[in-house]
């Protein structure tokens, strides 16, 4: 059970990290973006079904390392094609029991983002639809890099100038996994950031986001022990980015889960580069 909670939260964190790289700003016709990332996540404790903190106990620890690739293509002035994939290695220890480490491809995503409206080219409202496809089979391999079923997500994104040079990105959407148990999830995030200089070479941002997951059937089956049907988590992160040229930037982010129910308490960091061409 503990292993299940630890792993499921990491999966959700991974998906949100990878797809939120470029927010709601259109990439632009003829332009592309490529983002490699490295994520480290660690967890020991959790929140139980009542939202009460539970200590994982001495020796309990879950660690995961992941390399992700995200790419976007500006198909037109308003329409972008987005895709991501990741390779994850994870290990768990529960008390004195060390579980075998597993490595493999996780969920791949493919989506389209469309800019619905803009306000003086400074603020944008966009809609995005994404398909989530597992590149692993839980049943055959026992790997638990995700829900192991096909899923889809639709979301609205509002992004742009806030005050002065500061910016905002607000997203809200719905995600569903096509299993008889679902789950159905509400996903959301808010990012506020600002460049630290006039040429926007350095920038700082904070974001808060999370997932609230519901299912008609809360039974956990042995075949998919990592699926969380009913629970939520809220995660916060602090991000710093440096722009080397207008094409190459490097970002670092530290994150931690702030609240939850039926979810692991974890933290970690992400390093990712953005290459625009």
């Amino acid at each position, binding site marked *: 059970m503990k292993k299940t909670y630890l792993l499921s939260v990491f999966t959700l964190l991974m998906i949100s990290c990878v797809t939120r790289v470029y927010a709601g*700003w*259109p*990439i*632009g*016709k*003829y*332009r592309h*973006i490529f983002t490699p990332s490295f994520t480290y996540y660690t967890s020991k404790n959790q929140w139980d079904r009542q939202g009460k903190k539970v200590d994982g106990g001495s020796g309990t620890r879950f660690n995961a390392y992941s390399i992700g690739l995200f790419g976007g293509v*500006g198909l037109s*002035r308003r329409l972008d094609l987005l895709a991501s994939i990741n390779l994850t290695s994870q290990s768990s220890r529960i008390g004195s029991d060390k579980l075998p480490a597993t490595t493999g491809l996780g969920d791949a995503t493919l989506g389209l983002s469309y800019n619905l409206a803009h306000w*003086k*080219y*400074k603020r944008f409202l966009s809609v995005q639809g994404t398909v989530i496809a597992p590149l692993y089979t839980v049943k055959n391999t026992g790997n638990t890099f995700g829900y192991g079923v096909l899923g889809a997500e639709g979301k609205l994104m509002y992004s742009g100038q806030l005050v002065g040079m500061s910016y905002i990105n607000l997203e809200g959407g719905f995600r569903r996994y096509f299993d008889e148990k679902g789950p159905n999830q509400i996903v959301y995030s808010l990012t506020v950031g600002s460049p630290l200089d006039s*040429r*926007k070479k350095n920038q700082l941002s904070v974001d808060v986001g999370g997932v609230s997951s519901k299912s008609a059937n809360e039974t956990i089956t042995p075949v998919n022990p990592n699926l969380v049907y009913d629970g939520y988590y809220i995660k916060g992160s602090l991000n710093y980015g440096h722009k*080397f*040229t*207008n*094409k190459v930037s490097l970002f670092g982010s530290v994150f931690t889960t702030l609240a939850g129910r039926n979810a692991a308490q974890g933290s970690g960091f992400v390093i990712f580069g953005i290459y*625009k*061409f």
Partner: protein
Amino acid sequence: MLRISIILGAILAFAGISPALAQEEADPKGEIFIDTKSGNKNAVYTDQSSITYKLAVKSTYNVKQEGKLTYDLLTDDWKKVYTKSVSVRLGKKGSGTYHVRIPHQAAGVYRVHFSFNLTYYDDTVKRVVAVSPEKIKTESFMPADFSEFWSKSKDQLAKVAPDYKVTEDNKQSTKDVTVYKVEMRSWNNVPIRGWLSVPTEGKNWPVIYKLPGYNIAMKPEIDKPDFAVFTLDVRGNGMSRDIVAPDPDRYNLTNVENRDLYIYHGVYMDCLRGLDFIMAKGADYKMNTSRVCAYGGSQGATLAIVTAALDKRITACTFELPLYADMHDAYRIGTSFPKTTWPMNRFQEYLKLHRTYTQQRFLSMWDYYDPQNFISRIKVPVLMGIGLLDEFCPPRCSFGMYNKLTTDQKEYVVAPDKAHEMNFDYFMFQLLWFKESLRAPN
């Protein structure tokens, strides 16, 4: 006695007040605010749709006013094609909304005049609308030897050694942008100068090649972090007045009677020589010479069009408020105003003083320089901006020229409430357009 005094006092007091009241009623103080809103975005309509406006009127007068609102539709050379009146009643400090509908019109540019004639107020609000502007067709006056003239001119320019000199300007450079002063030799060996600004970090910068407006001295542009920018002072302009230095007021009259010696012959060649510099020295100064956009406003618009038309090394072209487009029509429209507008007033004055140089000869000479005779050669993406209220560059002439473009990668933006300038929205869009056309990241 006291009662009589009181009554007399009241009468006298009232007599004192009455003239003041009468004066106030005869000449009441106040303002009328009139807000006009076009029924179509940017006041561009199709030839199948009515022309509609909503007028919101607010009075600050302390008296009622009555009268009428007359709305007239005129062609851009002042021929009235439609008129209608409606009655207007405004209460004390009152307001009203009036919906105007004018039947659909043939493709063209039209003036819409809203005249309020009220008890104590008379004013006319003037607007301009474009109807199916992409269907506007204007006559072309292309000389038979136009191509040969410019081909020979380019060959002659190629014989002039450019003698480029590039000097870093430490005073104007910043930690983010390096500024260089550039000098070279152009047509007839005349020296011309410009400014090159290149971001300090990175390389392979796409280039914005900016050409000057009329008598506008160029400066380094250091606020474009995604581009190298080369701004050129053509002969007689800014830093390039060593040999050609006409009176600024008479710049476009310099040798106007001689096609070969006309100042714009050298000016157009200067623009090509500036492009030669970008191509020759691009690699040395971190420029991507496969991504160069010609850009200018007003006279600079004409120079950008000519440069893109005569030199295939230009990969995109954007301009706003194109001066001299369709000179035949522009001259006719400019001289139809109660007071001839600039620049046609300069040409008109000249022709009046030099009777042997007729209007026909003047326009025939200008046919070699008219940007509408160059524009069909442009095969790269084009963005045009125009202000509908522009009196220096009649919108009909701008559209007539635009419609001669043969590339399908063309678009325009209209600023309906602007005269010889564009609005913020246009410049925001143009920046994104620069990035798209020159493949710079968003």
